[in-house]
């Protein structure tokens, strides 16, 4: 049963990366879009694109937390004790990001838009870096088992953490760019489509380079995971590389469809291969999934909850995305007379 729960956890992390990660990546492009004039159009597209979905995407993170603390409580304690600093930064970043995104839409003066926009964009980069750094710290064995405290700084500022942190930021940006190409095309905005296509191509290449560097680092810092990537997880790594290259080719050739699916597959496989490479450890190489697991009653309850989620949440989530993709969720509320006035320009 613990294996099933571990798979669920890994899937949830991958889903969060694929959906929530893209929201963070959109923040990265928001940050780099340039001044208020020049960046207005890409920022508008970003806002419309993630507006209806970011809160729902965000719940995947909560789901990851809940599964971890219920199914693997002792490991959760170890992680939170050791990773106190990056988790705190991530928490504060999430507050800053969500709130400023919501606020930015409601304020209309350029000055305040800039303040909230800056807070939104900057924290969008910080949060995925922290999550990546935490994953890297876990993979390289910096989190001790048994609810113990690891080194508060080295555990997330080591070579593995730095490379996975950067990888997380780049992958998020890559996914976001790919999605935004799609959203721009759908809105008939060829200029923005080209704009984000260039960025998708560049970030794909950067992501590939960072991944290679990361693998080299892993071989010296996290032997078990590096070995796993070339054995247990090799099929997933192959799928990842193939779909990544496929997406890149489609992007370069400006193909009408396919790039998005392949990009999702590639990023999902990055997460998946990491999880499989760690197997059978939850905290390499001191705590296995089986040893870390909670009593069977808890695991069963979690699986019931997952079943319920499949019945209740997934249809809702699909409905949200279908409505969004059909452009039935264009804007908050209706056009109000209030929207037309007090534009300070």
């Amino acid at each position, binding site marked *: 049963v613990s294996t099933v729960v571990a798979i669920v956890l890994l899937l949830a992390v991958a889903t969060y990366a694929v959906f929530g990660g893209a929201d963070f990546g959109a923040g990265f492009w928001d940050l780099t879009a340039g001044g208020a004039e020049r960046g207005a159009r890409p920022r508008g597209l970003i806002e419309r694109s993630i507006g209806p979905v970011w809160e729902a995407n965000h719940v995947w993170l909560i789901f990851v937390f809940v599964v971890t603390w219920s199914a693997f409580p002792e490991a959760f304690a170890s992680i939170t004790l050791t990773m106190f600093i990056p988790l705190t930064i991530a928490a504060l970043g999430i507050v800053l990001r969500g709130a400023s995104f919501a606020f930015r839409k409601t304020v209309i003066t350029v000055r305040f838009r800039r303040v909230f926009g800056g807070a939104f964009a900057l924290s969008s980069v910080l949060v995925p870096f922290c999550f990546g750094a935490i994953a890297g710290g876990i993979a390289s064995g910096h989190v001790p088992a048994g609810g113990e405290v690891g080194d508060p700084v080295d555990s997330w500022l080591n070579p593995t953490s730095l490379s996975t942190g950067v990888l997380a930021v780049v992958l998020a940006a890559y996914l976001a760019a790919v999605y935004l190409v799609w959203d721009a095309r759908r809105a008939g905005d060829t200029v923005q489509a080209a704009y984000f296509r260039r960025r998708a191509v560049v970030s794909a290449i950067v992501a590939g380079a960072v991944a290679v560097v990361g693998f080299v680092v892993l071989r010296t810092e996290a032997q078990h995971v590096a070995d796993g990537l070339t054995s247990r997880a090799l099929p997933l790594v192959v799928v990842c590389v193939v779909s990544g290259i496929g997406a890149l080719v489609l992007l370069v050739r400006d193909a009408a469809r396919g790039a998005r699916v392949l990009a999702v597959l590639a990023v999902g496989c990055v997460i998946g291969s990491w999880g499989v490479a760690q197997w059978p450890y939850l905290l390499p190489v001191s705590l296995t999934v089986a040893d870390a697991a909670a009593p069977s009653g808890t695991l069963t309850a979690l699986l019931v909850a997952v079943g*319920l989620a499949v019945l209740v949440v997934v249809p809702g989530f699909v409905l949200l995305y279908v409505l969004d993709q059909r452009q039935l969720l*264009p804007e908050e509320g209706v*056009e109000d007379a209030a929207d037309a006035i007090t534009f300070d320009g």
Partner: protein
Amino acid sequence: VIETVVAAVNPVPWARSQMAFTLACHIILVPLGVSWAFMTLVANYKAVRHGDRSALLLAQRWSKYMAVTFAVGAVTGTVLSFEFGLLWPHFMGTWGDAFGVPFAFEGIFFFTEAIFVAIYIFGWRRLKPWPHFWTGVPIVIAGIFGTISVVAANAWMNSPQGFTLNSAGEVVDVDPLSVIFNDAMPWQAAHMLVAAYLVGGFLIASVYAVGMLRGRVDRYHRLGFAIAFTVAAVATPIQMGVGDGLARWVFSNQPTKFAAIELVPATGSDVPERLLGTLNDNGTVTGGIPIPGLASWLSDPSTGKATVIKGLDAVPADTRPTVAETNIVHLAWDIMVGLGTLLFLLSVWYGVSWLARRRLPTGRWFLRVAACAGVLAVVAMEAGWVVTEVGRQPWIVYNLMKVEAAATGNTGVWITFVAVFVLYAALAVTTILVLRSMSRRFRRAGGFAEQDTPYGPPAEPAETVEAGP
């Protein structure tokens, strides 16, 4: 370097302060998340069923405000799930397999809520009226069950059950159903759920009461006031009954908390109900207004004044709230009950006026009190939460784990507390400013834009709207 600077700072009081502060902030947004959608749907229903344009405008604007408060509530709620681990790692490490279970279900409901909030808020323009209305209904349902799930976890801390411990004190077996449906859950969940409707109702009604006091007595404001206030006025008497039931549950199952609530230092019968007053370090109680025998009588009317109430001295000093904590609990209790009674009287005033004259009471004094009711309801809710949390001290898991044993050993917590405090203060100020500026903008605008067609065909490109003066 960092470690040497912060080495001397004990993390426990800072961890407690940070948890208390972030929860105190989040709990204000909870009623809005849970009950505002219901009120919006009432307005939405009126609008679609009866073609009421004021109701339509109200529903649409409420959903825009909701987008802001829901976002802030979502992020402040996320912080809490980080804090479980960051501040209380040993609590989660030891009890996560039991305590964590209700959150798995809460997650589902929160997920549902987030999905349908998005669909509802963003669906005004392009969805058809009735399907759009129905996309709001899951928000209400998910809000109800989400509240119940979260409170089930808190209730479990008061009534820990559904697990087996081995000789080393580790959880070896979990019965998730008795974790979720623990003995404290029904009363506590009902109390918080009704509170969400009560506080949400008074809070929103108070905004429209202020508007009417400033002379904006139009149909739009009257409707906004009436919908919200009616919800609150229905919830208030229910809350008194539920609160009474919960108090009696505490009397039977958490006698030490009850002793702190009623300020009872020594076990005895014929205990007075003391309004205000303080417990002194030497164990005597001074000040306040004692009502003879009432505490005993209320605790169990069947035995009346002869009902024995266990005092604080029934348990060793290190397993009960300190004198200062006891005084906080008692004062918070008095505030909650006092304000609750006041709000009950206000609701009666409203109800009588409604029944007798078939219209809203619009007297200035009624509106003045109603304008304060929102803040008072929030204060009452915060006080009630202080009663349940401080009254459980020094335990985090009642009679099983103390707060000190649960806390992180990380000595940098005071820094995160300062950071969180600054961030939340900025967040609170900005949230209020943003809501106010929205309201001011709506007010200046009056009604709909000329070109506006709610529930109409696909809107024209929005660029035309953005050409301002």
